[in-house]
Every structure is written in C-alpha cells, then in structure tokens.
C-alpha cells in the first residue's frame, strides 16, 4: 500500500486554519502572537530554536484528536510538548507547523491501590504521582532529576530514567498502557491495565519514540510499594578511579543497589557552591542507596562499607535521617544547574558506556579536556554506566563554544567506541540525530523508519527528529534513490 508522501510547503498557516483550531480549543487555547510564541521556541536545549506557527493548549483527548485531524488534512506537522524540560531538542518546534502543549491536561484520573495502577493525563508532573500515592506507602519509580517540573507525557516520549532506574527500571517498565492519538487523528489504546495484551507490544514501541509516533493523552502507570528500609551512603575517594573500582566490587558482590551515583571534584565544587550539600572535597564521590527489608539492608550496608574502605574511601557517611538523605541527594540532583555557578556556559552531555570502561573513558575525557583547554565536570549514574559530562566554556571567548561542542561530541564517539550509546536518558531529538548513523547501520535505521511509517505515513508527528534523514513511506528499502516526487520538486526530504 502506497501512502501520499509528505509535502512540505513553506508558507504560513492560513487564517482559516487558525479559525478552525481556535474553534476547537477556544480563544485562550491558541497562541499566535510572536511575544508569547517565544516561550515555546526551544526546550531545555536552548541552542536550537525555531518559531512555530502557533501553539495549541488542548484540555481533552477529543480536542487533541480534533487538532491532529486538522493537521492531517492540511499536511501540517505538529510537535507535542510537555513541560519543555527535555535536553535533546525533542520539543523543538517545526517552523511550518504547530506545537501542541499538553500542559493543561494535567489531571490524575484514577488511583487504584489494590492493582498498583495510576491513570494520568500527560501534563501531570512526575513528582505529583508519587505525591498522590505516598500516603499509602507507594511511589512512582522513574525519577529524572527534573522530576519536580517534568511531565509524565514528556517522560513517556523520552523513556526517562533517573538515579533509581538501576534497580527499578526506566519509564518503559512502569508504563503499562497508553491512550494515543495517532497522526491521522484516530484514537488507539496500546497495552492496558492488564499485562500482555494480545498483539504486538505497541506501548513498548511508543515509549521512547520521542513524539514521532503520535500523542499520548492518557497513561496507565505502575506504582511501587516503598521498601521497608532505605539507607543512603556517601563515600569520598581520592579519585574517580578508586570510586569506579568500588562500583565494580559492589556489582561483583552480587548487590543491586537502588542507585549508585558518582561525581568528580569539579562537579562536587559546583554542587557545594550552589546548594551546600556538605559534600567532602574529594576526587571522586559515591552516593549509594540500598533498599529492601531491614535485616537485609543492614547486612549489605556492612559489606558496602567494607568495599568502600578497601578502595581507599577516606570518609564514609550514612544518612541518619530523611532530612540528611534529602541533602545527600540535593547536591546530586542539582548538579547540572549548579555548574552555572562555576562557569558562564556549559553543555550537558548524555552518553552510556559499559560500566567496566569507566576508568579508561574518564582518563580519555580528561585528556581531551586538557587538549582543548576546557574543563569537564563529570556526574554519572555509575551503576549503569550513564555519563553526564558537563563541558564548561565561556561563549564570550572566541572559538570556545565551537570547541566545547566538538569536545562533547567527541565524548559520545568515545562512548560508541567503548560499545556504548549516544544517549542513556535525554533522547536523540534534534541534537543527536546526525550521529545516529554512527551508532546504527543503515539497515537498522531503515527498519526503525518502517515502523514509523506504520504509525505516521505522512510524517507529521515531530517529523524532523531522531533520524538523520526521513524516509518517504512506501519507498523500497535499499540504496538511496531520489523519489520521483522529489525529482519533480513536489516533495522534499527535510
């Protein structure tokens, strides 16, 4: 079956279309004035900016469907947006399209404790889910550092992680079902409250697809019972190598902590300057959290303490209260923002390596930093090898921004050379789409694109993201050949 290829006409959206959209969402649900549109021209990755034709703020699934139907009829691309905290430009608008903000769809629709399920609209803030269920001893496990502001819809798009996904899994583990408006405006229910629905695991495919397969309007989440005991240990090591060796020993001992986080000296300095977490001034800091039954955690804490000491830890603290535990975490969770205290500008990078490659990669990063005259602060989810190097620079110094960008991408190449990934939790979005072909071969990307064509043959849903080049749906895979519509100037690849 052949579908009409996407036709991109570079004109502004006609008045009649806005009239129709306004009728759907009401006067206050449509933003078209340039001053207000500025708010939406980028997400957390501010280096990429684009002005959309308009921003729509629907309040219901029906409104989202009606908007998307108009987009489909008019062949107008759309970009869904949650809280706009994404760090890969996933919510970057498309200049000839509209942004659909899900911010007003922010209700928690159902809390079902016996089945440990919560049903939410996409605009619900991550931490509010836990807030709603904590009284009964439950929590929502995925905890990206932005959890006080980021939305569940955005988490679904990016398959967000967080410090505790080492033990508890990522967003995809905790999303059981989705109500989705497909790019043609039709409504489907992927997965559900029960597991293993007959058919392909489309909820699994949708989570992490970065808004390219449609818009989630309702999400069924799994909540988790809080463990009996949570203990957080902070250990100061002479270097990140020593801290890394401790991590290896923890894993080798057969422990699965809830989280293992590492910060290097520069990151510690930044955190101290910003939030005064009282971290020891050391070369490598580990934050390890164990949870489970009291008796088990007690045994494992003794073992953990011993492992840290054997790897030259010179100071070990165990949080004695919830307040102290929160303080331990505050410095880590604020790490990205804190770097603003020690550098005018910085790039947040997100790469993954096999845990065992940590010492080698860290020394490579240090070497590259020295060569380019730039400082790199390192914050990692050490348990799963997810690095967040922060490349510090000063935009005012000529050439530094370019050098910083080059360095941050060189770090990703190192991750790939080590057998890792170009992103562990921030997504590909706009930022990394051009290096997808370094991680994946053409047939790999081609196969993903075929899946995309099944969902969105006209490529209207966040069309310019994730892939280095789009694929006209219906074309045969294989060598690149210009589509007849391209050569005729009717369609273009964007």
């Amino acid at each position, binding site marked *: 079956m052949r579908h009409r290829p996407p036709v991109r006409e570079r004109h502004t959206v006609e008045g009649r279309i806005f009239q129709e959209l306004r009728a759907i969402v009401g006067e206050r649900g449509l933003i078209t004035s340039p001053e207000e549109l500025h708010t939406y021209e980028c997400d957390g990755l501010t280096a990429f900016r684009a002005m959309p034709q308009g921003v729509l703020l629907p309040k219901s699934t029906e409104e989202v469907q009606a908007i998307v139907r108009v987009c489909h009829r008019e062949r107008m691309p759309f970009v869904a947006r949650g809280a706009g905290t994404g760090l890969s430009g996933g919510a970057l608008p498309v200049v000839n399209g509209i942004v659909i903000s899900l911010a007003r769809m922010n209700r928690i629709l159902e809390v079902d*404790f016996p089945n440990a399920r919560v049903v939410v609209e996409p605009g619900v803030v991550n931490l509010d889910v836990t807030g709603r269920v904590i009284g009964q001893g439950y929590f929502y496990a995925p905890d990206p550092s932005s959890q006080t502001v980021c939305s569940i819809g955005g988490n679904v798009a990016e398959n967000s992680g967080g410090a505790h*996904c080492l033990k508890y*899994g990522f967003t995809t583990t905790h999303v059981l079902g989705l109500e989705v408006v497909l790019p043609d405006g039709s409504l489907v229910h992927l997965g559900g409250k029960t597991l293993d629905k007959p058919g392909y695991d489309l909820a699994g495919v949708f989570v992490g*697809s970065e808004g390219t397969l449609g818009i989630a309007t309702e999400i069924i989440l799994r909540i988790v019972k809080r463990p009996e005991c949570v203990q957080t240990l902070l250990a100061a090591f002479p270097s990140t190598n020593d801290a890394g060796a401790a991590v290896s020993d923890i894993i080798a001992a057969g422990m699965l902590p809830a989280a293992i986080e590492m910060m290097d000296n520069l990151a510690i300095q930044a955190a101290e300057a910003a939030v005064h977490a009282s971290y020891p001034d050391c070369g490598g800091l580990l934050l390890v959290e164990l949870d489970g039954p009291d008796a088990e955690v007690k045994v494992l804490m003794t073992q953990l303490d011993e492992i840290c000491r054997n790897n030259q830890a010179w100071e070990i603290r165990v949080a004695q209260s919830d307040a102290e535990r929160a303080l331990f975490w505050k410095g880590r969770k604020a790490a990205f923002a804190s770097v603003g205290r020690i550098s005018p500008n910085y790039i947040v990078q997100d790469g993954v390596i096999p845990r065992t490659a940590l010492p080698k990669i860290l020394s490579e990063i240090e070497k590259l930093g020295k060569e380019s005259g730039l400082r790199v602060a390192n914050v990692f989810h050490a348990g799963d090898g997810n690095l967040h190097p922060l490349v510090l620079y000063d935009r005012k110094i000529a050439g530094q921004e370019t050098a910083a960008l080059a360095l941050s991408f060189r770090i990703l190449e190192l991750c790939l050379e080590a057998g890792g990934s170009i992103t562990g939790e921030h997504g590909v979005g706009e930022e990394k789409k051009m290096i997808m072909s370094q991680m994946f071969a053409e047939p790999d990307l081609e196969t993903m694109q075929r899946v995309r064509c099944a969902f969105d043959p006209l490529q209207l849903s966040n069309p310019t993201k994730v892939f280095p080049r789009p694929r006209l749906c219906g074309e045969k895979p294989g060598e690149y050949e210009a589509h007849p519509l391209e050569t005729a100037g009717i369609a273009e690849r964007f």
Partner: protein
Amino acid sequence: MDAALPSQTSMLTTTLEEALRAIVKEEHVRAAAPHDAFAGVQPQFVVEPGSEQELAKVLKLANESGIAVIPRGGGTKLDWGNPPRRAHLIVSTARLNRVIEHVWADMTVTVEAGCTLQTLQKALAQHGQRLALDPLWPDRATVGGVLSTNDSGALRLRFGALRDLIIGVTLALPDGTLASSGGKVVKNVAGYDLPKLIIGAFGTLGVITRAVFRLHPVPKATSTISCLARDLSEAQRFLLAIQDSKLAHSALQVRCVAGAPPQVDILFEGVEAGLTAQAGQLKSMLAPALLTDPGPVVWKARGELYSAAKGSESNCAVAKISVLPAGIGDALTTLASLSANKVRCNAVVQATGIGCVHLEGEPGTIAPVLKSLRAEIERTGGSLVIAHRPATMPPLDAWGDPGDTLSLIRAIKRQLDPAATLNPGRFVGGI
C-alpha cells in the same frame, strides 16, 4: 492471496532446493519428517543456517519465492497461537546456539537465538549470574523462541518480563535485511525500542538471530513458603495483603487443583538474615493460617500444567490468562463455576495477574468453557490466549479481542513482512 499461490508440492521445486543448498551447506537442508509437523500442518523442508547472514539469505529467497517460513527454535511452543495457513519451510536456529559474550562485570550477555535457556543459564552461573527469567522447558526452549512467545514465569513479579530484561536484538527480515536495535549497555534510549516489538510477535515480523540481556546476581539464599487458603476469596486477600506489604518477595502465586483448596506460594531471595526476618513477618501477617515449607518444587507447577497438555492424544487445553491482580480470585471462581462437573480444571496464577489454566475433558465441552471464560475476563479488561488445544476441539481463535489496535498491528506487519512470508495466520487478526 493464498489461493493464488501454486500448490505446496509444486512450489518447492528442485531449483529452490538447489538455491537453499547454495546458501547453506548440503547437509543442513533436508526434507521435513513427520516429527516436524505441528498444529496439524506438515512442512516440506527444514533448513538450518549456520550464521545470521545465511539465515537472512534463506529468508530473502523464501520471500521472493512466495513460500511460507516457520522460524523454529526448540520447537516447544509451535502449537501456540493459531495453526499457520501455510508452512513450507522450517528455518531452524539450531546451529545459532552460541553464548557470544558474557561480560560478567557489566552484567550483560550477548547470545544467539538458538541457544537454550539452560545452556545460557549454565554459562552465566559460572560468574554467579542469571537471566532472571523462569520460562517453560528451559532444557529445550531457545532464547529466540522464548522471546517470540514472550514466555515468563513466577520471577516476573520482581524482575519483570523479557521486555524489561532485553537490551538489544538483531533481526533478520523477510527481505534479507539484518537489523539491530538497542545495544549492549543497560541504559540506552537511542532510536526505537524494536526489541519490545518482536517480543511476543510469534516470529511474524522477522527472525531473531541474537539478543542482548541485562543480568542479575544468583541469590545467595532462597526460601519458599506456602499457605493453604480456605477458599479463593481468602487466597485473593492473601495475595493483595502480601503485595501491599513491605515484603521484598521475588514471586507470589496461587495454585488451584480441581476440588482442593487453593495454595498461595511465596518466594524470598536474598541474604539469609533477610529471609528469616521476612518469613516471620509473613507468618504474623497471615495468621492464623498455617504456613509450610514445600521447597522450590511448587514453582514447577506452571510448567507441569503446560507439559500435561502436550501430546496429540491428550484431551487437554491450556490457556494463558491475564487479569488485574485484584481480579484473580474472581477469574478463578468463574473458571470453577464454568467447568463444574464437565471439565476438570487446574490453574496457577501469579500475583502479576498472569496465569495459566489447564482444562481436561471432552474437546466439545472444553471449547465453550474457554469461550465463556474469555468473555468474562475480557469484560474486565483482561485476555485469554490459547496455547494448546486438543486436535479435535472445535475451531476457536487463539487470541481473542485485540482491541482498537488491529489496523496499526496490520500496518506494522505490512511494513516488515508485506508478503506474509513469516508464520502466516498464527498471530492476532489472522496475521
């Protein structure tokens, strides 16, 4: 479309056989034997490719020749789903059976699709690790087959299903494409999550050639505790109370044998001190119910139900059910009342809501029980999928209601296997 194809006998011409032999060595192509038949269908050839590339070439050849391919691992679950409309060529992964790389320090493993679960687990155990999954027939079931059927056992409660354990996959598509998705690291969000797409797809989109998994440590100690419930509603109360507690159990199930009171089993894993403390908590939580220590044998109950139904002579059906955790008691009560005196029924259901029901009786009486049970379970949002049925049972779709996703499922099938080369007719909606 199927009617337009030439008859099976004329289709697999000598030319095609020669073409297959040009891809894989002569001794790895053979005429199918009676024991290669499954679900009442007799395939014609069996081919055993020795590499991913060979497998992809075989698929391409079959696809271009218009013949139907049945991917086969250990062949333990070939009767699951609907019988295929066509089945000419069995593509066996028997020779793709290596554990490619166990990076124990990273707790990951790359393994070929034809490796059995038992072989894999033995290799992992050398470094005190495991794939935290307890599927059926691990001595014969292969990685590819377990993935394709999304099989999982009791450990799913704590460690999740295959979707939570897989981190990368390589697939051969009918057009000969070899495509990888995911990677070798446990955390990775680059590109679409295609491992999820092929789990439970029954080999209808591509043939899995290798997979990468995240691993867990083998627990230092384990203990199993059982508790006899007075009836199903008490069993349900026990399940919910345990799930709502702070116990850190790895598995929790209810076992129902026709005519006997239900048993609730709980598995603890971890360090000895933790197990003892939790056993104490469990005891006071369920008091005055009597607790026993039956040993790990109770975790074989699910496998026994599936195994008992195997064999063409049996008058048994087995179905996988999925209900809400709080709806387990109701589903089992419905089952008991439906089967009444006509059909003997046993069931094992995990606290996740996933379980299996085993029915024994006249094939003509089993079908209506399955139908009514499915209707009741679907009414409450669950599903019932038939895994095995007596050969003489009246036709009944294995899958049930796929909801409103059928056109999307078909669109994906069209994109990856437009000629319906792979397992035609076995899956949902006639795919």
